[in-house]
């Protein structure tokens, strides 16, 4: 069965997403890494849906809708930040730092 390989690939992809968020400083790349994590979770949902019924596939719909909403709002926020500070490097966006 494909459940174990799917969960393996999903775990590795999720870890890659987390590593990207931890390692990069460019806000847009960090955002793409979040999408990578969402996709890894989608793979888990689909793999388990094959065994546990269609509910997992339905949940992938909702994850996709949330990802689309998040991308729209997040990229708008990045646009607004860039307009104020002329950079997307998170090192230079330190307004809250004391």
């Amino acid at each position: 069965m494909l459940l174990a390989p799917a969960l393996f690939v999903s775990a590795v992809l999720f870890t890659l997403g987390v590593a990207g968020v931890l390692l990069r400083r460019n806000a847009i790349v960090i955002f793409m890494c979040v999408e990578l994590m969402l996709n890894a979770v989608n793979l888990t949902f689909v793999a388990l849906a094959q065994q546990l019924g269609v509910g997992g596939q339905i949940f992938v719909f909702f994850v996709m809708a949330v990802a689309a909403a998040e991308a729209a709002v997040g990229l708008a926020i990045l646009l607004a930040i860039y307009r104020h500070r002329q950079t997307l490097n998170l090192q230079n966006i330190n307004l809250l730092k004391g």
Partner: protein
Amino acid sequence: MTPTVIVFWAFGGLAVWSGYLCITRRNPVASALWLVVTLFALAALFVLLDAQFIAVLQVLVYAGAIMVLFLFVIMLLNIGRAARSDIKGAWGLGVGVLLSGLLMVQLLALRFGAPPPQLALPADAMARAAAEQGMVAAVARPLFSTYLVPFEITSVLLLAALVGAVVLAKRRL
């Protein structure tokens, strides 16, 4: 190893490799394009896991719409040519790799937990439901009956995101 398993590992390896390239490329455009490759490989995995309709949605919505939005913003802000790498220095790199390695060990340990037997359907339950009702109907029927309320709430969420994006991105209202 049946042919299905071999194809699965091929596309799984492609997804992991392009995901690795996505988080290590210096140029954000290259990162985005490698992420698109990952999304296509994941769509292939979805087909192998009896989720053809989800695979089509993955290509249409993720690779087609969301990634175009990303590339559009990257090119709008003209950050495509990064002068130097934005990956953190030695300390940040070490801590990040350590933490994500720890997470990977924990996630791979989870892989050995099988679902409880009273939950498991027959092995080909999804394939059989798709053969009986059609691929789209097998997903759509529960979506519009059991999961109707979450579905409607999702439409409100999308409307809120739409209004929020316009408010945030507009220079002055």
